[in-house]
């Protein structure tokens, strides 16, 4: 391809951040604070990512959204950040000293300039759809604001489920509903790119032995986070999905979809031991009468204050940790209770354990679309599909000239590690702009 002379291409001294979870948010804020313009592209209708769904963080038990929401608001208000939500990167090519990036901005069918975020449209909308943010445990509407602290706090219409009944349009006082809105393609000129595309949970429906999807009372840890969250679908009341019973004997099964060679995920997801210990403590703190048992292969409490937290869970809160592999889960169809075949890996004995709620500590996998994004950017992926660093030891956030990676896109990690990497990637990106004389 004949390339244009480098000098002619007007590359902006700007940085593209792909992904608006905690890593992308931190990277965007840090770059913007250096006086450099940022385009933050998030494919979902709000920034916030998985951290917005968590009830509390470990090991400090801080309210997750309370830490995250101010950062989300800072992103929206920062004069150096252009926030592009409900948008996807569809093309990247090197141009001059930087990149030309195509972004598809999907139609929300709601004018963001007019929408006040009052939520009356979604209150009145007759169409109910399982709410992704609440992990399917409650409903959302066809016109909706993804969650109360969403940024931007602008409604959108899910056209796949909308009936075109027109109720929202007839009641919106701000006249924000616009069924004629079209997707837009934007072209951005940037000097550097930070990939913070995050992760998804391993697909547990494929792991039949745990009964997820077949047995109502087998749920994921992320579902539990929503179930015990005060603004969750049950307003923080712990009730099991089959019949609204307050569970009395809860099991956490560790390493679901992690350290599992059968499904090609032999890696440790790094966060599950601690989020299980955290969730176990939250259950005991709210409902001391509930018995909580964690079935684990190894407990990996490697971080600052982690080991102490697990000890507190055990000693102070009475959480029972059993070193054992759960071979299968069976349901009593009459009661919805579950029987776990547990092999005690210390004694080799197999026992049957009764529980009335089972929580799967599901591992982390590369986000959907990671492979396509890697192709667009010309990046290498590791053997499990996470983005690979070009200098794993000396500069873990470097991926390619002008492209940096951070957070769970580069491999499973917890929130503080994601934030630290994001700040490092931001610094590297700004340094890169200086090196190529864009700043």
């Amino acid at each position, binding site marked *: 391809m004949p390339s244009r002379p480098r000098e002619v291409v007007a590359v902006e001294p700007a940085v593209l951040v792909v992904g608006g979870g905690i890593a992308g948010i931190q990277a965007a804020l840090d770059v913007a604070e250096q006086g450099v313009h940022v385009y933050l592209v998030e494919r979902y209708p709000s920034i916030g990512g998985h951290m917005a769904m968590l009830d509390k963080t470990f090991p400090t038990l801080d309210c997750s959204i309370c830490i995250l929401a101010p950062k989300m608001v800072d992103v929206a208000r920062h004069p150096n950040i252009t926030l592009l939500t409900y948008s996807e990167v569809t093309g990247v090519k090197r141009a001059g000293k930087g990149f030309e990036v195509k972004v598809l901005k999907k139609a929300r069918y709601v004018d963001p300039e007019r929408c006040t975020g009052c939520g009356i449209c979604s209150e009145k909308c007759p169409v*109910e759809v399982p709410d992704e943010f609440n992990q399917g445990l409650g409903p959302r509407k066809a016109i909706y604001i993804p969650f109360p602290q969403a940024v931007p706090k602008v409604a959108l219409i899910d056209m796949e489920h909308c*009936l075109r009944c027109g109720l929202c349009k007839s009641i919106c006082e701000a006249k924000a509903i616009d069924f004629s809105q079209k997707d837009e393609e934007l072209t951005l000129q940037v000097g550097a790119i930070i990939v913070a595309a995050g992760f998804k949970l391993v697909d547990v429906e494929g792991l039949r032995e745990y009964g997820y999807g077949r047995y109502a009372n087998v749920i994921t840890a992320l579902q539990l986070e929503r179930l015990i969250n005060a603004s969750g679908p049950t*307003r923080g009341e712990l*009730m099991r*999905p089959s*019949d*609204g019973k307050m569970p009395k004997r809860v099991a956490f099964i560790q390493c679901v979809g992690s350290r599992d060679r059968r499904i090609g995920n032999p890696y440790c997801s790094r966060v599950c031991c601690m989020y299980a210990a955290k969730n176990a403590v939250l259950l005991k703190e709210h409902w001391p009468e509930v018995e909580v048992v964690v079935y684990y292969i190894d407990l990996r409490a490697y971080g600052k204050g982690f080991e102490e937290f697990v000890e507190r869970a055990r000693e102070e809160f009475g959480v029972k940790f059993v070193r054992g592999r759960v071979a299968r889960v069976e349901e009593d169809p009459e009661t919805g209770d579950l029987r776990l075949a547990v092999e005690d890996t210390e004694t080799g004995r197999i026992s049957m354990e009764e529980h009335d709620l089972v929580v799967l500590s599901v591992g982390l996998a590369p986000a959907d679309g990671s492979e396509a994004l890697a192709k667009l950017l010309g990046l290498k992926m590791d053997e499990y599909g996470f983005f690979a660093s070009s200098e794993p030891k000396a500069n873990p956030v470097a991926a390619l000239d002008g492209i940096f990676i951070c957070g769970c896109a580069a491999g499973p990690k917890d929130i503080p590690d994601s934030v630290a990497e994001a700040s490092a990637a931001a610094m590297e990106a700004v340094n890169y702009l200086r090196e190529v004389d864009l700043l």
Partner: protein
Amino acid sequence: MGSEELRAKLRAAAEAFSGARARWLLGRSRHIVEAGGLKPEEAREVLMGMLKDELERGWIMSELKERGPLTVPELSETTGLPKREVLRHLICLMGEGKVVAKGRKGDYHAFSAT
């Protein structure tokens, strides 16, 4: 159909149609079918599903108002709806602010109309 059951169903229908959702859906049903977002038979199916939900929720609301607080198994026994469906309806009604989970009966959460 026994007269008690008939009365319960009428109460449920009255409850459902006192809400804006069922009335709007019925009033707009022709427009929705003609709007072409869905195929006509799909639109009819979706509408029927929604009206069924509204009637079931109406039944649950009238039971809660008359005899609440009630648990999921109690509501399931009265209405004949599966427990999981009853809970799904209760969660939707909680979201609309019409129902609260307050206190317990035995091991089960008890729900009341607000």
